[in-house]
Protein backbone atom coordinates (compact mmCIF):
# COMPACT_ATOMS: atom_id res chain seq x y z
CA UNK A 1 0.00 0.00 0.00
CA UNK A 2 1.41 3.35 -1.04
CA UNK A 3 0.05 5.90 1.42
CA UNK A 4 0.22 9.63 0.66
CA UNK A 5 -1.84 11.28 3.35
CA UNK A 6 -4.06 10.69 6.37
CA UNK A 7 -6.92 13.10 7.08
CA UNK A 8 -9.02 13.37 10.24
CA UNK A 9 -12.25 15.35 10.54
CA UNK A 10 -14.20 15.63 13.79
CA UNK A 11 -17.52 17.43 14.06
CA UNK A 12 -18.92 18.35 17.45
CA UNK A 13 -22.51 19.55 17.39
CA UNK A 14 -23.52 21.76 20.33
CA UNK A 15 -26.96 22.92 19.19
CA UNK A 16 -29.49 21.73 16.64
CA UNK A 17 -32.86 23.33 16.00
CA UNK A 18 -31.70 26.07 18.39
CA UNK A 19 -31.70 23.58 21.25
CA UNK A 20 -28.72 22.37 23.18
CA UNK A 21 -27.30 18.95 22.34
CA UNK A 22 -25.97 17.59 25.62
CA UNK A 23 -23.64 15.79 25.55
CA UNK A 24 -22.46 17.27 22.23
CA UNK A 25 -22.87 14.86 19.30
CA UNK A 26 -19.52 13.81 17.88
CA UNK A 27 -18.86 12.37 14.44
CA UNK A 28 -15.35 11.45 13.25
CA UNK A 29 -13.98 10.60 9.82
CA UNK A 30 -10.50 9.28 9.10
CA UNK A 31 -9.39 8.91 5.49
CA UNK A 32 -6.30 7.41 3.90
CA UNK A 33 -5.20 8.63 0.47
CA UNK A 34 -3.48 5.74 -1.32
CA UNK A 35 -2.23 4.95 -4.76
CA UNK A 36 -4.79 2.89 -6.68
CA UNK A 37 -3.24 -0.62 -6.53
CA UNK A 38 -4.38 -1.23 -10.11
CA UNK A 39 -3.30 2.14 -11.55
CA UNK A 40 -1.86 1.96 -15.03
CA UNK A 41 -2.63 -1.75 -15.51
CA UNK A 42 -5.61 -1.42 -17.85
CA UNK A 43 -8.59 -3.66 -17.14
CA UNK A 44 -7.57 -6.15 -14.45
CA UNK A 45 -9.99 -9.06 -14.42
CA UNK A 46 -9.01 -10.62 -11.09
CA UNK A 47 -8.84 -8.02 -8.34
CA UNK A 48 -8.19 -10.56 -5.59
CA UNK A 49 -4.40 -10.24 -5.33
CA UNK A 50 -4.61 -6.43 -5.05
CA UNK A 51 -7.40 -6.70 -2.48
CA UNK A 52 -5.45 -9.25 -0.43
CA UNK A 53 -2.36 -7.04 -0.49
CA UNK A 54 -4.18 -3.89 0.63
CA UNK A 55 -7.62 -4.22 2.25
CA UNK A 56 -6.64 -5.72 5.60
CA UNK A 57 -3.76 -3.26 6.10
CA UNK A 58 -6.14 -0.36 5.39
CA UNK A 59 -8.72 -1.62 7.86
CA UNK A 60 -6.04 -2.13 10.51
CA UNK A 61 -4.71 1.40 9.93
CA UNK A 62 -8.01 3.28 9.92
CA UNK A 63 -10.09 1.50 12.59
CA UNK A 64 -8.07 2.56 15.65
CA UNK A 65 -7.53 6.07 14.24
CA UNK A 66 -11.23 6.81 13.80
CA UNK A 67 -12.09 5.49 17.26
CA UNK A 68 -9.28 7.57 18.79
CA UNK A 69 -10.56 10.65 16.97
CA UNK A 70 -14.11 10.08 18.22
CA UNK A 71 -12.86 9.93 21.83
CA UNK A 72 -16.06 8.11 22.81
CA UNK A 73 -17.53 4.68 22.12
CA UNK A 74 -18.95 4.43 18.60
CA UNK A 75 -22.68 3.85 18.31
CA UNK A 76 -22.93 4.25 14.53
CA UNK A 77 -20.46 3.73 11.73
CA UNK A 78 -19.88 3.74 7.97
CA UNK A 79 -17.21 3.62 5.27
CA UNK A 80 -16.25 5.20 1.95
CA UNK A 81 -14.19 4.57 -1.17
CA UNK A 82 -13.65 7.53 -3.50
CA UNK A 83 -11.82 6.57 -6.66
CA UNK A 84 -9.72 9.00 -8.69
CA UNK A 85 -10.76 9.66 -12.27
CA UNK A 86 -8.48 7.11 -13.93
CA UNK A 87 -9.76 4.19 -11.84
CA UNK A 88 -12.86 2.03 -11.75
CA UNK A 89 -15.39 2.32 -8.93
CA UNK A 90 -14.90 -1.45 -8.74
CA UNK A 91 -11.37 -0.78 -7.45
CA UNK A 92 -12.67 1.16 -4.46
CA UNK A 93 -15.47 -1.31 -3.86
CA UNK A 94 -12.92 -4.11 -3.91
CA UNK A 95 -10.96 -2.54 -1.07
CA UNK A 96 -13.91 -1.85 1.25
CA UNK A 97 -16.41 -4.60 0.45
CA UNK A 98 -14.46 -7.41 2.01
CA UNK A 99 -14.49 -8.72 5.56
CA UNK A 100 -10.72 -8.29 5.48
CA UNK A 101 -11.30 -4.53 5.62
CA UNK A 102 -14.41 -4.15 7.75
CA UNK A 103 -13.67 -6.75 10.42
CA UNK A 104 -10.95 -4.54 11.91
CA UNK A 105 -13.52 -1.82 12.58
CA UNK A 106 -16.21 -4.25 13.75
CA UNK A 107 -13.83 -5.87 16.21
CA UNK A 108 -12.43 -2.57 17.53
CA UNK A 109 -15.93 -1.09 17.98
CA UNK A 110 -17.59 -4.28 19.33
CA UNK A 111 -19.89 -4.06 16.33
CA UNK A 112 -21.81 -6.71 14.44
CA UNK A 113 -23.65 -5.11 11.53
CA UNK A 114 -22.44 -4.54 7.99
CA UNK A 115 -20.96 -1.11 7.38
CA UNK A 116 -23.05 1.16 5.15
CA UNK A 117 -20.92 2.62 2.38
CA UNK A 118 -20.50 5.22 -0.32
CA UNK A 119 -18.51 4.44 -3.44
CA UNK A 120 -18.00 7.07 -6.10
CA UNK A 121 -15.48 8.43 -8.56
CA UNK A 122 -14.43 12.03 -8.81
CA UNK A 123 -11.72 14.67 -8.94
CA UNK A 124 -9.57 15.95 -6.10
CA UNK A 125 -11.66 18.04 -3.74
CA UNK A 126 -14.86 16.12 -4.38
CA UNK A 127 -17.36 16.24 -1.52
CA UNK A 128 -18.61 12.86 -0.37
CA UNK A 129 -21.28 11.85 2.13
CA UNK A 130 -20.60 8.82 4.32
CA UNK A 131 -23.75 7.04 5.56
CA UNK A 132 -23.72 5.71 9.11
CA UNK A 133 -25.93 3.16 10.83
CA UNK A 134 -26.07 1.61 14.29
CA UNK A 135 -23.19 -0.76 15.00
CA UNK A 136 -25.28 -3.67 16.27
CA UNK A 137 -28.74 -3.15 14.76
CA UNK A 138 -29.02 -1.53 11.35
CA UNK A 139 -32.78 -1.02 11.84
CA UNK A 140 -32.35 1.46 14.70
CA UNK A 141 -33.71 4.53 12.99
CA UNK A 142 -32.31 7.14 15.40
CA UNK A 143 -28.79 6.34 14.26
CA UNK A 144 -29.30 6.68 10.49
CA UNK A 145 -27.17 9.73 9.62
CA UNK A 146 -24.49 10.98 7.25
CA UNK A 147 -21.33 13.00 7.54
CA UNK A 148 -19.65 14.99 4.77
CA UNK A 149 -15.96 14.95 3.96
CA UNK A 150 -13.66 16.66 1.49
CA UNK A 151 -9.91 16.57 0.93
CA UNK A 152 -8.78 19.54 -1.14
CA UNK A 153 -6.09 17.68 -3.10
CA UNK A 154 -7.36 14.09 -3.21
CA UNK A 155 -8.00 11.76 -4.87
CA UNK A 156 -5.58 12.35 -7.74
CA UNK A 157 -6.56 10.51 -10.92
CA UNK A 158 -4.47 7.48 -9.92
CA UNK A 159 -5.46 7.43 -6.25
CA UNK A 160 -8.24 6.14 -4.01
CA UNK A 161 -9.51 7.72 -0.79
CA UNK A 162 -10.61 5.10 1.74
CA UNK A 163 -12.42 6.38 4.84
CA UNK A 164 -14.13 5.19 7.99
CA UNK A 165 -16.68 7.21 9.94
CA UNK A 166 -17.97 6.81 13.49
CA UNK A 167 -20.60 8.66 15.55
CA UNK A 168 -20.95 8.82 19.31
CA UNK A 169 -24.75 8.85 19.16
CA UNK A 170 -27.74 9.08 16.84
CA UNK A 171 -28.89 12.25 15.15
CA UNK A 172 -28.99 15.32 17.37
CA UNK A 173 -32.61 15.83 18.50
CA UNK A 174 -33.61 12.48 16.98
CA UNK A 175 -37.31 11.94 17.62
CA UNK A 176 -38.72 9.67 14.93
CA UNK A 177 -40.93 6.73 15.80
CA UNK A 178 -39.02 3.43 15.70
CA UNK A 179 -39.44 1.07 12.79
CA UNK A 180 -41.28 -1.41 15.00
CA UNK A 181 -44.07 1.12 15.63
CA UNK A 182 -45.05 0.96 11.95
CA UNK A 183 -45.32 -2.80 11.77
Amino acid at each position, binding site marked *: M*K*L*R*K*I*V*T*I*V*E*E*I*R*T*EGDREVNPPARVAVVAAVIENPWAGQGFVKDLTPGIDATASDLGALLAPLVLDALEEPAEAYGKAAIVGLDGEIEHGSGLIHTLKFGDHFRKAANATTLLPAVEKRGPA*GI*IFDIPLKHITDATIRSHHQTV*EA*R*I*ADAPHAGEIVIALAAASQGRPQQRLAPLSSEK
Partner: protein
Amino acid sequence: MQQSLRGEGIGLRKVVVYRETVITEGGQQPARRTLQASVAAVLRNPWVGTPPTHELSDEVTRIAPALALLLTDRLQSALGGVDAVEAFGKAAIVGCGGEIEHGAALIHTPYFGNVMREYLDGTSILCFADARAEAGDPLVIPLWHKTHAATRSHYQTVSTRVSDAPRPDELVIVAAGSSGPRPHPRIGDRTTDPAVTIKSLESVLS
Protein backbone atom coordinates in the same frame (compact mmCIF):
# COMPACT_ATOMS: atom_id res chain seq x y z
CA MET B 1 -11.40 29.96 31.70
CA GLN B 2 -13.04 26.53 31.84
CA GLN B 3 -16.27 28.13 30.70
CA SER B 4 -14.45 29.72 27.77
CA LEU B 5 -12.91 26.40 26.77
CA ARG B 6 -16.41 24.98 26.52
CA GLY B 7 -17.54 27.94 24.42
CA GLU B 8 -20.61 28.72 26.49
CA GLY B 9 -22.59 31.92 25.98
CA ILE B 10 -21.24 32.83 22.55
CA GLY B 11 -23.97 31.31 20.36
CA LEU B 12 -21.87 28.30 19.37
CA ARG B 13 -23.56 25.69 17.16
CA LYS B 14 -20.73 23.44 16.08
CA VAL B 15 -16.97 22.89 16.18
CA VAL B 16 -15.20 21.12 13.31
CA VAL B 17 -11.60 19.94 13.58
CA TYR B 18 -9.73 19.07 10.37
CA ARG B 19 -6.25 17.56 10.51
CA GLU B 20 -4.00 16.01 7.90
CA THR B 21 -0.60 14.35 7.81
CA VAL B 22 1.45 13.98 4.66
CA ILE B 23 3.06 10.54 4.60
CA THR B 24 4.59 10.92 1.14
CA GLU B 25 4.79 13.87 -1.25
CA GLY B 26 6.14 13.44 -4.74
CA GLY B 27 6.54 9.77 -3.84
CA GLN B 28 9.01 10.44 -1.00
CA GLN B 29 8.64 10.76 2.74
CA PRO B 30 9.29 14.25 4.09
CA ALA B 31 12.31 14.65 6.35
CA ARG B 32 9.85 15.65 9.07
CA ARG B 33 6.32 14.30 9.30
CA THR B 34 4.15 17.38 9.80
CA LEU B 35 0.57 17.82 10.95
CA GLN B 36 -1.64 20.60 9.61
CA ALA B 37 -4.93 21.42 11.31
CA SER B 38 -7.80 23.85 11.28
CA VAL B 39 -10.46 24.30 13.94
CA ALA B 40 -13.67 25.98 12.84
CA ALA B 41 -16.37 27.29 15.17
CA VAL B 42 -19.85 27.99 13.85
CA LEU B 43 -21.65 30.69 15.81
CA ARG B 44 -24.56 33.04 15.49
CA ASN B 45 -23.59 36.39 13.96
CA PRO B 46 -24.46 38.76 16.82
CA TRP B 47 -24.75 41.73 14.45
CA VAL B 48 -27.13 40.40 11.79
CA GLY B 49 -29.78 43.03 11.11
CA THR B 50 -27.74 45.89 12.55
CA PRO B 51 -26.78 48.84 10.30
CA PRO B 52 -23.18 49.62 9.24
CA THR B 53 -23.15 52.41 11.80
CA HIS B 54 -23.56 49.91 14.64
CA GLU B 55 -20.69 49.91 17.14
CA LEU B 56 -19.16 46.42 17.28
CA SER B 57 -16.88 46.62 20.30
CA ASP B 58 -19.23 45.35 23.02
CA GLU B 59 -19.69 41.97 21.35
CA VAL B 60 -16.04 41.84 20.29
CA THR B 61 -14.81 42.13 23.86
CA ARG B 62 -17.38 39.59 25.04
CA ILE B 63 -17.12 36.96 22.28
CA ALA B 64 -13.67 37.17 20.66
CA PRO B 65 -11.53 36.15 23.69
CA ALA B 66 -13.71 33.14 24.52
CA LEU B 67 -13.69 32.10 20.89
CA ALA B 68 -9.92 32.50 20.58
CA LEU B 69 -9.34 30.42 23.69
CA LEU B 70 -11.68 27.64 22.57
CA LEU B 71 -10.23 27.45 19.05
CA THR B 72 -6.60 27.76 20.08
CA ASP B 73 -6.87 25.10 22.75
CA ARG B 74 -8.41 22.69 20.25
CA LEU B 75 -5.73 23.59 17.71
CA GLN B 76 -2.78 22.89 20.00
CA SER B 77 -4.44 19.65 21.04
CA ALA B 78 -4.86 18.59 17.39
CA LEU B 79 -1.21 19.38 16.61
CA GLY B 80 0.35 17.72 19.67
CA GLY B 81 0.73 20.59 22.15
CA VAL B 82 1.75 24.25 22.18
CA ASP B 83 5.42 23.49 21.55
CA ALA B 84 4.53 21.42 18.49
CA VAL B 85 2.75 24.36 16.84
CA GLU B 86 5.25 26.06 14.52
CA ALA B 87 3.03 27.97 12.08
CA PHE B 88 -0.35 29.61 12.51
CA GLY B 89 -3.11 31.52 10.77
CA LYS B 90 -6.76 32.51 11.20
CA ALA B 91 -9.89 33.02 9.13
CA ALA B 92 -13.49 34.19 9.11
CA ILE B 93 -16.32 33.14 6.82
CA VAL B 94 -19.36 35.41 7.09
CA GLY B 95 -22.81 34.17 6.16
CA CYS B 96 -24.49 36.17 3.42
CA GLY B 97 -26.75 38.03 5.84
CA GLY B 98 -23.76 39.71 7.47
CA GLU B 99 -20.98 42.14 6.62
CA ILE B 100 -17.35 41.12 6.10
CA GLU B 101 -16.73 43.66 8.87
CA HIS B 102 -18.48 41.28 11.29
CA GLY B 103 -15.94 38.55 10.62
CA ALA B 104 -13.10 41.05 10.73
CA ALA B 105 -14.36 42.26 14.11
CA LEU B 106 -13.94 38.84 15.66
CA ILE B 107 -10.47 38.00 14.26
CA HIS B 108 -8.67 41.33 13.70
CA THR B 109 -8.56 42.76 17.20
CA PRO B 110 -6.27 42.01 20.17
CA TYR B 111 -9.24 40.29 21.82
CA PHE B 112 -8.72 37.41 19.39
CA GLY B 113 -5.19 37.75 18.03
CA ASN B 114 -3.37 38.45 21.28
CA VAL B 115 -5.12 35.58 23.02
CA MET B 116 -4.23 33.16 20.22
CA ARG B 117 -0.64 34.38 20.01
CA GLU B 118 -0.05 34.27 23.77
CA TYR B 119 -1.64 30.83 24.15
CA LEU B 120 0.60 29.44 21.40
CA ASP B 121 3.80 31.20 22.57
CA GLY B 122 3.93 33.10 19.29
CA THR B 123 5.17 36.58 18.44
CA SER B 124 4.36 36.94 14.73
CA ILE B 125 1.40 38.84 13.40
CA LEU B 126 -1.28 36.29 12.41
CA CYS B 127 -1.88 35.93 8.68
CA PHE B 128 -5.49 35.43 7.65
CA ALA B 129 -8.18 34.85 5.06
CA ASP B 130 -11.77 36.01 5.04
CA ALA B 131 -14.79 35.58 2.82
CA ARG B 132 -18.52 36.00 2.69
CA ALA B 133 -19.94 32.76 1.45
CA GLU B 134 -22.69 30.20 1.37
CA ALA B 135 -22.67 27.17 3.65
CA GLY B 136 -20.21 24.53 2.50
CA ASP B 137 -17.85 26.82 0.61
CA PRO B 138 -14.23 25.89 1.31
CA LEU B 139 -11.72 28.53 2.37
CA VAL B 140 -7.93 28.29 2.09
CA ILE B 141 -6.12 29.64 5.16
CA PRO B 142 -2.52 30.88 4.93
CA LEU B 143 -0.06 29.96 7.67
CA TRP B 144 3.37 31.25 8.55
CA HIS B 145 5.90 30.72 11.32
CA LYS B 146 4.63 31.80 14.74
CA THR B 147 7.86 33.54 15.79
CA HIS B 148 9.71 34.14 12.50
CA ALA B 149 7.07 35.08 9.94
CA ALA B 150 9.64 35.41 7.13
CA THR B 151 10.73 31.75 7.44
CA ARG B 152 10.04 30.65 3.89
CA SER B 153 9.86 26.90 4.60
CA HIS B 154 6.76 27.48 6.70
CA TYR B 155 4.69 29.36 4.09
CA GLN B 156 1.82 26.96 3.55
CA THR B 157 -1.97 26.77 3.51
CA VAL B 158 -4.66 24.50 4.88
CA SER B 159 -8.19 24.22 3.54
CA THR B 160 -11.25 24.40 5.79
CA ARG B 161 -14.91 23.68 5.13
CA VAL B 162 -18.05 23.15 7.18
CA SER B 163 -20.75 21.35 5.21
CA ASP B 164 -23.75 23.24 6.59
CA ALA B 165 -22.22 26.55 7.68
CA PRO B 166 -22.27 29.47 7.65
CA ARG B 167 -26.01 29.95 7.41
CA PRO B 168 -26.86 33.54 6.35
CA ASP B 169 -27.02 34.62 10.00
CA GLU B 170 -23.89 32.78 11.13
CA LEU B 171 -20.12 33.20 11.24
CA VAL B 172 -17.44 30.54 10.87
CA ILE B 173 -14.29 31.55 12.75
CA VAL B 174 -11.16 29.46 12.25
CA ALA B 175 -7.79 28.99 13.94
CA ALA B 176 -5.27 27.00 11.90
CA GLY B 177 -1.71 25.78 12.29
CA SER B 178 1.02 23.38 11.39
CA SER B 179 3.66 21.44 13.30
CA GLY B 180 6.34 22.00 10.67
CA PRO B 181 7.31 23.17 7.20
CA ARG B 182 6.08 22.16 3.74
CA PRO B 183 6.87 18.50 2.96
CA HIS B 184 10.03 19.13 0.90
CA PRO B 185 11.05 22.79 1.37
CA ARG B 186 13.90 23.68 -0.95
CA ILE B 187 13.51 27.24 -2.19
CA GLY B 188 16.11 28.83 0.04
CA ASP B 189 15.51 31.63 2.47
CA ARG B 190 16.25 35.31 2.92
CA THR B 191 19.64 34.38 4.31
CA THR B 192 20.60 32.49 1.15
CA ASP B 193 19.00 34.73 -1.50
CA PRO B 194 21.21 36.77 -3.80
CA ALA B 195 20.33 40.46 -4.10
CA VAL B 196 17.64 40.44 -6.78
CA THR B 197 16.69 43.70 -8.52
CA ILE B 198 15.11 44.39 -11.88
CA LYS B 199 18.55 45.56 -13.04
CA SER B 200 20.22 42.34 -11.90
CA LEU B 201 17.63 40.39 -13.89
CA GLU B 202 18.31 42.16 -17.19
CA SER B 203 19.61 38.99 -18.83
CA VAL B 204 16.54 37.00 -17.73
CA LEU B 205 13.99 39.68 -18.61
CA SER B 206 15.40 40.64 -21.99
